[in-house]
Every structure is written in structure tokens, then in C-alpha cells.
């Protein structure tokens, strides 16, 4: 089983690296675009040397975790966004008749290796952040340093899948999932104290975006959440990631069952 996926993946990578110049331009372009996000945080931070009551090195740690988590998810399952065109054209039929999981096929068939550059870039930011920010090192913190970005990646993957699944009911929904994927990415790069009102309650704690980088970063820094969530919540990112993956998987299967192929 694994071998089949592996072959699909390798074929996809080979085909996309055939046009070398285009591939390099895409790789560089995608990497530059992510640097813009970091540049934006930095420009805004520089206005008063703080953001939402946090200092630069603390904010950098949150940016760092988010800068690893999102690109991994984007690399792994970001291309699930293409589902829309499969549903619209009825091509999804072809996936259903093969003896492999539909989600697995979709993800490997449109794998985009150009997104790998961002993961590397994010890792560089994260390592620098860990080196300069006042992390209170201990054994649990060391585990969290590794687990937090991975949990974040699982969480964002779930968001990608859940967002794409909407296309089974609503074909032109592409932009809708952007609100939660790319919008969520922007949210996680800032301390949650920046946001307010109902929006913070829904996005940060209800949907769980605070668990990607804000809460784990607080645990690493040995700070309590100024918003008032209990301290143990800072360690719960792997659990919320698992929960989100289960929900996204259930939603996906419901969507597939709802699929009725195209009209003609």
C-alpha cells in the first residue's frame, strides 16, 4: 500500500521538476511570499517595540512555531484545495474506483514540492527564535519544542481538509477555506492578546488557533496566559490536534458519501 503512494509521489515530484526554471522560480517565489508575512509582523512590531503586551523575542517564538507548522501542513495536504475542480468536472469518480483512499490519492497526486522551501525557511526562523528567546528549558519543554510545531501542522492539515470538503456541497467554496487556512496562519503568528471580542473567543479558543503557537509558546516561556486560560491548557496542543484530525476525517467521509458526480 505504502509503495503505491510512494510511486505516485515520486512520479509527481519528477514531473514537476521537469521544467527546471519554472520550478526554481516557483520555489523562490513561494519562499519570498512567506518572508513577507514575517516582514509584516516585524514592521508592525517595530512601531512600538511590542505587540499585544509581548516583547520581540517572545513574539518571534510564536512566529517561529507558526512558521514551521503551517508550511508542513501546506506541503503535506495543501493541494487538497484542488478538490473543487475534481468535483466540478466529475474527475473525482476516477479516485473512487481505485482501491486506495480518496484523500490519500488526492494529496499525493497533486503534491507540490515547490512548497518545501517554506518549511526550511520556517525551521531557520524557529531555531533562531529558540536561541534568542527566554525559553525556560526543562525536559517537558524540550519535548514541547518538537511536538508543538508538529501538532500545529496536524491542526492546519485538518483545517485544509475540512475547508476543501465544503466543495462537496458548495463547489465555488475555494475562497471560503482561505479564511481559515491563510487567515488562521495570520492569526497564529500573533499573540492572542492582540485580538478581542467574540472574534478571539471563536478563532483562538473555539476553533483552536491559540493551540498552534500562542499557548505552547507561553509554556516554553514559563508565562501564564494573560487572557486567563488555565495553565494546563498550554500543554494541550497535541490533544486538540488529534481532535481536529478526527473531526476533519469524519467530515471528509461525510462529504465523500454526499458526492453525486457531475451532471453529464
Amino acid at each position, binding site marked *: 500500500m505504502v509503495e503505491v503512494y510512494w510511486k505516485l509521489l515520486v512520479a509527481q515530484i519528477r514531473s514537476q521538476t521537469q521544467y527546471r526554471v519554472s520550478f526554481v522560480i*516557483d520555489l523562490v517565489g513561494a519562499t519570498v511570499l512567506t518572508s*513577507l508575512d514575517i*516582514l509584516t509582523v516585524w514592521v508592525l512590531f517595530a512601531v512600538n517595540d511590542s*505587540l499585544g503586551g509581548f516583547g520581540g523575542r517572545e513574539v518571534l517564538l510564536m512566529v517561529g512555531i507558526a512558521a514551521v507548522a503551517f508550511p508542513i501542513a501546506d506541503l503535506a495536504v495543501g493541494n487538497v484545495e484542488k478538490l473543487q475542480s475534481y468535483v466540478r468536472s466529475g474527475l473525482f469518480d476516477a479516485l473512487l474506483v481505485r482501491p486506495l483512499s480518496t484523500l490519500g490519492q488526492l494529496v499525493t497526486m497533486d503534491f507540490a514540492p515547490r512548497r518545501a522551501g517554506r518549511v526550511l525557511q520556517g525551521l531557520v526562523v524557529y531555531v533562531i527564535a529558540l536561541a534568542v528567546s527566554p525559553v525556560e528549558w526543562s525536559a517537558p519543554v524540550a519535548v514541547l519544542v518538537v511536538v508543538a510545531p508538529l501538532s500545529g501542522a496536524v491542526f492546519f492539515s485538518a483545517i485544509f481538509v475540512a475547508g476543501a470538503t465544503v466543495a462537496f456541497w458548495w*463547489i465555488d467554496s475555494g*475562497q*471560503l477555506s482561505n479564511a*481559515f487556512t491563510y*487567515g488562521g496562519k495570520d492569526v497564529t503568528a500573533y499573540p492572542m492578546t492582540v*485580538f478581542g471580542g467574540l472574534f478571539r473567543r471563536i478563532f483562538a479558543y473555539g476553533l483552536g488557533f491559540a493551540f498552534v503557537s500562542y499557548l505552547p509558546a507561553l509554556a516554553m516561556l514559563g508565562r501564564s496566559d494573560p487572557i486567563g486560560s488555565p495553565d494546563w491548557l498550554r500543554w494541550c496542543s497535541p490533544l486538540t490536534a488529534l481532535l481536529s484530525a478526527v473531526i476533519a476525517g469524519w467530515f471528509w467521509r461525510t462529504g465523500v458519501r454526499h458526492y453525486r458526480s457531475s451532471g453529464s
Partner: protein
Amino acid sequence: MRWSPGARVLVALAGAGFRRYATYRQATIAGAFTNTVFGFVRCYILLSVADVTGSLAGYAPGQVVTYVWVGQGLLAVVNYWGQQDLPERVRSGEVVSDLLRPVDLMAQFLANDVGRAGHAMLSRFVIPVTVGLLAFDLYVPTNPVTYVLFLVSVLLAVLVCSACRYIVALTSFWLLDVRGVQMVWVVASGVGSGLYFPLPVLPEWLVVLLWVGTPLPSLLQAPLDVVVERGGTGHGLLLVAGQVAWLLVVCGLARVVQTRALRRLVIQGG
């Protein structure tokens, strides 16, 4: 501007652009929803920056809020990153049938885009701005002149952006694959137009360089500064005059590039 093959044709093309987008109702709602979510994100972020000293680079909190929400509304009107048919038509050679029509290629492109912008103004603009009005204390301009000036400024922004994207699309006559140029355009237009952050937070020399040396602030920063009445009506008039100047420059450039591009035209497979 020499072309005037019949204003009626252009109006018809604009109408077609309007109707085309009016049929994508799901996409319109999904897009407006996304702009609204991003409006909340950007609004809270910029407000928290403004909160510390009571203003952000000369914008009072109310102005910041208006800046963000009107900006989110305009994002779809001034269509930075929209789908482009033209490069694909150049690659396949279909552009020949566009050129056979008795209407200039650039006029077709701009007229169509103005129609699209008209539809976006009535849908994609209204929804986020309404939500912003309900959820935050927007700075609402009291001077009626501001509203007129704002509409003029938006129209100019649409035209400048359209002409810029037209030049980007024309590079496909040389490159066939415009992804690289497109990428440069996306990065430059995002950073240089005030979309990610209001330009005045940057060092002054850089801001002046952007206004004088590039058409980018004309895309978003100009209409937004007009609507928040930064520097009053006099300053607003100056901004609109600057947009007119940039429109002339960009259109002139587009004409030159178009003339050269058409000389290179090869019909694939002919």
C-alpha cells in the same frame, strides 16, 4: 489616448464583465466572507499597535478601522490577483481572434475589468464594510466632497491596476509562461500598495520613493487615505492628481509594450 472605436462597444464589454461575475454567486459570497475574516484579523492587529501610543503613524484608531475594512472591501474591486485569461490566450494563439475584432485589445481588457469592478463594488465591497461598521467604530467622513473624491479615486485605482496587470499579461508574448513575472507583481503590489500595512509606518524616504517612483500606492493607499481624510480634502485632491499622472504613465507604457508585443505575435500551429 487615441482609441475611440465607439463608446457603445466599450460599455457593452463592461456590461458583459459585470454580468459574468454576477453569475458566480457562490464565489462572491465565499470571497466576501474571506475578506471579512481577514478584516477582523488585520483590524485587531493594527488596533493593538495603535493602542500603545493612541495612533498608528498618524492614523487615529477610528481611521485605522476604516482603513482596514474599506481596504478589505476594495481588495476585490481593485483586482490585484485575479484570474487572467490573456496570457493563456497568447500561449494558445487564441489572442488572434481578440485582435481581429475592431476594438483595441487594451480597451477590451480595461472595459471588461471596469465592469467586473462595478460588480465587485456592489457586492464584495459592501459586505465587509457593513460588517466592519457593525462590529467596530469606523471613522465616517462628514465632508460630502470626500465621498465623490473616494469614488473617483477608486475608479482610477481600478484603471491603474488593470493597466499594470495588462503589462504583466503582455510579457507572455515574450515568455509564454508569466508565472515568474506574476509572482514579482504579487509581492510588489502587496507590499507597496499599503495592503499589508499602511505605508506611513515605513521610513519616510521609502514612502516618498514608493509614491513618486511606483504606481503601487495608487492602487490602495490613495483611495484609503482619501476616505479617512488624511491631510484633508486638499491632500486628497493631490493624491487623485497623482493617480491620474500614474494612469497616464502606465497606459502610455502599456501602449508601447503592446505595439512591440504584437510585432512578435506568432500564431501557434498555424
